[in-house]
């Protein structure tokens, strides 16, 4: 057993002399030393939160009957009981969030609630009257709802609702509400909104976030422009005015192959300037949310037995599958490195975030605590488990519960959380609050993760998730990675930790390899020599009762130091971690059992919840790349001979 020493941080918060007994020694978990010491922690604490949430102030949420307010959305995040406007249900989170960013659509931001508010000047507009007309037929193409939706989808604004005064006043109301709930050290409300570019149903959406307490005077909307480059121009101009910001694209899976395309939005191959702007403005991307996972698709990762997870491929309200190439994170990592080889900049150097994109004003990351995503479209168990197809050509049950963004920050404040996201020291989960550390360096020793000073040493001798490996020292043969994962006490045990390596092979094509790094139940599970894989952990879920057991399989904590056995110093590579839980019931299974309804045939009854880290990148030294290129062109070696010394 490891020695435990009394840390100064623990002493400083102890109420000295308050008890007759001597102060017992206290050690936090190995991966999170000095949490809650009351001081900013240079070794960083993990904070869990939602960075993608809609309320009644989003026009599409409003037209599907959502009336949840900003206040209610924050109260939910704080763990207070809130009442859903649609079903009247009283709901409450089991574990509160540390931070919440409400990201209503910038288009008609805050306008819809005014249409039913007698005190608003918008109350008497023709659209408002039409909207309130009890005899209106919602399927009439000229109904208020369809008018609003059509205007959003086609990007044609209704002029009376987009005046700068109106936008500014609504944005200010939002900022005031967010500031009221921001409680430094305890609960952070990040300012943000969603820029909703959706040309021909291709999801190019970006969420925009601000560091300070005000944000811009008026948000830049997709009515202003649907081109990402114009959004970047806006963000750059805000930054030069001192308003720090960044954007997070989401749902690459529903972008019809546009999100991570090597082509510019307006056509033609991407140039260096475009790539650099994309990287500078977009540090993170959502790896999962209600409308599916954007990690990878089984088609692209045929050897990944866990790739078929929360896949959604029908484009929103289009009802068809779009193009899938260039829609997923794992391949984008490799494509980005291939572009870097050509352009000198990697446009897809993305860290990982996750969220809900819930349009009901609350964020259901707890699988057992899901109450629908889209207002009255799925506000009852019967609607959620309805096997009939919806407008997107799929069923409501395909919607996932919320993902969660985890950030490693020095403290729970707006600037600290913003900075952590911008620096990509983040990871995403499919919902559970799994804790995950991931470091890369050249000389981590194998016992590092069991050391008391694991985190301190890991920072000192390497870099955290979301960073570039330091240059390879001459003596080091391959990079080493330290990973630590701990389960959510309210969720399933951990099955395994994997490192996924994305690289560009010698033909310039995207390649991937998945390594099982550490797993539970090691005495009964060994790597199968035929497949090179660790066998499945087993499944304790009883779908008839929607229960599972942590008693017989899985682990609380998994940790290891791993060295890449296939390292090629001439090959660009990105490494990221995937942690898998043991199988637990999907929300559809909980609902079916509670309401005595049949399970849906088109979704999994049990899922392996997971966390994905931001990657750590390896880039070969420039002169070696140049050498290789020259050699390829001329057939012989140029420049200083490779000495093997430090470079």
């Amino acid at each position, binding site marked *: *057993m490891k020695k*435990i020493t009394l840390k100064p941080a623990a002493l400083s918060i102890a109420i000295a002399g308050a008890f007759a007994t001597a102060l*017992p020694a206290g050690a936090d978990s190995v991966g999170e030393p000095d949490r809650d010491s009351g001081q900013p922690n240079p070794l960083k604490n993990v904070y869990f939160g939602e960075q993608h949430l809609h309320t009644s102030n989003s026009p599409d949420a409003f037209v599907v009957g959502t009336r949840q307010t900003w206040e209610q959305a924050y109260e939910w995040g704080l763990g207070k009981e809130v009442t859903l406007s649609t079903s009247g249900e009283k709901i409450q989170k089991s574990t509160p969030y540390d931070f919440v960013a409400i990201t209503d659509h910038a288009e008609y931001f805050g306008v819809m609630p005014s249409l039913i508010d007698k005190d608003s000047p918008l109350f008497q507009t023709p659209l408002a009257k039409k909207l309130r007309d009890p005899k209106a037929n919602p399927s009439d193409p000229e109904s208020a709802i369809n008018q609003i939706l059509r205007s959003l989808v086609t990007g044609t604004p209704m002029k009376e609702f987009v005046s700068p005064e109106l936008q500014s006043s609504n944005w200010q109301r939002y900022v005031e509400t967010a500031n009221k709930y921001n409680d430094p050290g305890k609960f952070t409300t990040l300012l943000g909104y969603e820029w909703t570019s959706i040309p021909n149903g291709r999801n190019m959406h970006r969420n925009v976030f601000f560091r300070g307490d005000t944000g811009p005077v008026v948000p830049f909307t997709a009515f202003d422009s649907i081109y990402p480059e114009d959004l970047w121009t806006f963000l750059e101009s805000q930054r030069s005015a001192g308003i720090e910001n960044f954007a997070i694209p989401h749902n690459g899976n529903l972008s019809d192959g546009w999100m991570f395309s090597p082509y510019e939005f307006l056509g033609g191959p991407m140039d260096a300037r475009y790539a650099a702007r994309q990287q500078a403005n977009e540090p993170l991307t959502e790896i999962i949310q209600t409308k599916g996972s954007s990690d990878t698709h089984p088609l692209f990762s045929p050897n990944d037995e866990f790739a078929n997870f929360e896949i959604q491929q029908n484009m929103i309200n289009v009802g068809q599958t779009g193009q899938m190439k260039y829609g997923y994170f794992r391949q984008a990592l490799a494509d980005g490195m291939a572009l870097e080889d050509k352009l000198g900049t990697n446009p897809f150097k993305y860290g990982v975030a996750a969220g809900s994109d819930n349009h009901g004003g609350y964020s259901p990351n707890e699988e057992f605590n899901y109450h629908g995503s889209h207002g009255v479209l799925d506000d009852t168990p019967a609607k959620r488990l309805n096997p009939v197809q919806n407008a997107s050509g799929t069923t409501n049950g395909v919607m996932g519960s919320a993902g969660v963004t985890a950030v490693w920050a020095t403290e729970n404040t707006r600037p600290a959380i913003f900075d952590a996201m911008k620096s990509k020291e983040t990871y995403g989960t499919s919902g559970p609050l799994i804790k995950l550390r991931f470091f890369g360096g050249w000389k981590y020793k194998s016992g590092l993760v069991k050391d008391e000073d694991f985190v301190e040493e890991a920072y000192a001798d390497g870099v955290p998730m979301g960073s570039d490996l330091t240059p390879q020292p001459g003596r080091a043969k391959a990079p080493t990675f330290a990973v630590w994962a701990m389960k959510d*006490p*309210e969720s399933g045990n951990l099955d395994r930790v994997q490192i996924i390596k994305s690289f560009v092979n010698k033909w310039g094509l995207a390649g991937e390899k998945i390594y099982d790094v550490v797993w539970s139940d090691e005495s009964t599970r060994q790597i199968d020599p035929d497949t090179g894989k660790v066998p499945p952990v087993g499944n304790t879920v009883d779908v008839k009762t929607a229960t599972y057991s942590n008693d017989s399989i899985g682990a609380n904590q998994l940790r290891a130091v791993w060295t890449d056995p296939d390292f090629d110093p001439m090959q660009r590579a990105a490494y990221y971690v995937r942690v898998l839980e043991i199988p637990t019931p999907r929300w559809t299974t909980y609902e079916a059992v509670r309401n005595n309804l049949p399970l849906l045939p088109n979704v999994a009854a049990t899922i392996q919840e997971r966390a994905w880290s931001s990657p750590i990148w390896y880039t070969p030294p420039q002169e070696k790349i140049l050498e290789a290129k020259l050699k390829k062109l001329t057939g012989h070696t140029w420049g200083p001979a490779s000495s093997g010394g430090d470079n």
Partner: protein
Amino acid sequence: MSSPNRFGRLLRDPLIHFLLIGVAIYATYGLLDPTAENDDAATITVSQEEIQSINEQWTRLWNRPPTEEELASMLRKHVRTRILYKEALAMGLDRDDQVIERRLAQKVELLSRSLVVPEPPSDEILVAWYTENPDQFRAADTYTLSQVFLDPDRRGDSTGADAAAALGALQAMDRVPEDLSAYGDSGIVGSYYAGRDSTQLSKVFGSGFVNQLVTLEPRRWHGPVLSGYGVHLVYVHQVTKPEPPALADIRAQVEEAWMLEQVEQRSAAFIDELVERYDVVVEATEVPLTVPPVQAGE
């Protein structure tokens, strides 16, 4: 209502207060409001004050004054409403209308709340009231605890037996030894947490653990307390109800809460009194009538 001292009682009767105030409001309004005298059969006068108020309302919502066109449009609407209102009254449309009935009832209720504006309380009253009602101003309870964790990952089937043995040893000692590491496993959760509230603790241990924790008697070893991680033995050093802040620091907040309570009490008393003055006849003998207590603000 028959009482030997009927007149004296009348003077103390809130309803009489109410009626007198109503008469006073009516009289004052009639004297001061120029529109009232001019609003005869076919004249509508819009006063400067009304225009001002329309202006202000707009500015508050939109952060700018209305343009001339906007103001004109608002005024047209306002005048139209006034005219139609008069016509409706003349036609008797205010009778047998549930919305109007409710709205007027609401107005009386609101009036009852502004009936007697309580004087700001004296220091003495406020101190006494704050001493009796500190809870709404106090931060959440905090817990200081030591705990021993037995990790099923390491101990497997013997986790339960190990926990029982460790608990026995700790209970025999009846205190918290300086070094707890010999009793359990480290690396998942800390062995000592000082002054954390239940929200903070549920982020470390999960809410299941915290639900058990809050029931534990302090200064004794308890176990097994279960969490999503495994088995814990828990010793609560103390539960601290944080002292309410000094009155001087939150005086305005306390005063506001006191005033609110006064207003609500008086309003409720007043409405109760009104209800008492009525004989209620319900014409359906089958239905048992239970009159729920009438509450202010309903």
